């Protein structure tokens, strides 16, 4: 079961949160139930730039798992 998980940056609504957080959203087109967001502390990103790619990889893995579970439930129904 292959699925294309896309990621995009979500800009927080307030200035306070824009300064503190880098938000990534993982999603599958047409399946909003499996969308998931990861908020990464900007201070940690500065100290450890690799955290961004690590978080993106984890997000894609999580959304893929969500999608597979979602499809299983859909097949049952």
């Amino acid at each position, binding site marked *: 079961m292959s699925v294309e998980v896309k990621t995009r940056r*979500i800009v*927080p*609504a*307030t200035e306070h*949160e824009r300064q*503190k*957080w880098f*938000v990534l*959203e993982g*999603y599958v087109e047409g399946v*909003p*139930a*499996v*969308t*998931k*967001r*990861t*908020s*990464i*502390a*900007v*201070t*940690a*990103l500065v100290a*450890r730039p690799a*955290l961004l790619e690590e*978080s993106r990889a*984890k*997000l894609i893995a*999580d959304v893929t798992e*969500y999608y597979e579970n979602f499809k299983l439930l859909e097949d049952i129904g």
Partner: protein
Amino acid sequence: MSQLEGILRAPRGNPATLRDWEQFLRRLNEQMKFDGERAVINALTTIASRTGTDLETLLQMLTDQGRAQDQRFLPQVSAGNVLSLQDVNPLIASSDAVTATISIAPHSLQYGFDVISFNGGTITGLLPSTTYFVYADDPDYEGGAVSYFATTVRTNVVASNGRYFVGSIETAISANTAAIIGATSASPIVFETGTAHGWSTGNEVTLSALPGDFGTNLNGNDYSITVVDPTHFSIAVDGSAYVPYTTGGLASRISQDLPGGAGGGGGWVDNPYYGYSPA
């Protein structure tokens, strides 16, 4: 409109023309502006004390279903002293060697008017061994995929209308590893680390790659430690018969995932605080 009948002169019959409607709305607007003591919203609150705004703005804050979207309109009384309950405890925290992560499981929130479902999420780049308060902004009660944030300042949770308090949680201790550079053949065994370990008495470590008798008897096992100083700790094992330590070895602190505390209006439904046990 029944709540407003006492302060309005209803037009004779239904307003039929644009002029009738204009007249009716103008009269309604005047009453609500100037009669702050008696103009009532949701049978509980006066416009003057809660909003200080005009009719046009008030009407914009209502949905088609007549549900107030703004938190200021929610009545202060609530069922069972809570305004909402989560269906599960959604929070769990873990740590690696450097940073902590809070995972938020998909869950739902039961309000008086509806059930709101939230997708899962994570917050990462956090400090280990720190208490965080987790929230999400959802002013329109839409649920779905929201951005979860964490703060160490509890008051931030209520610093914005429409903010949903997901719960509080203490992140796990860091799972860092220290290189062993010395060990005593004694009881208890005292280990020396190459750099400051940063651990506390009662922490558990996994020992590995130790040489000789130390390795044969201790490698792969978990031990509760007693901190001697920043670069020494001991374990309650009699190593007096071991051949002297030579070189090598690692000690890795064990970090266990931790569950979170109550969120929403009253935590989750099987929170022991409420004495509820699911069947």
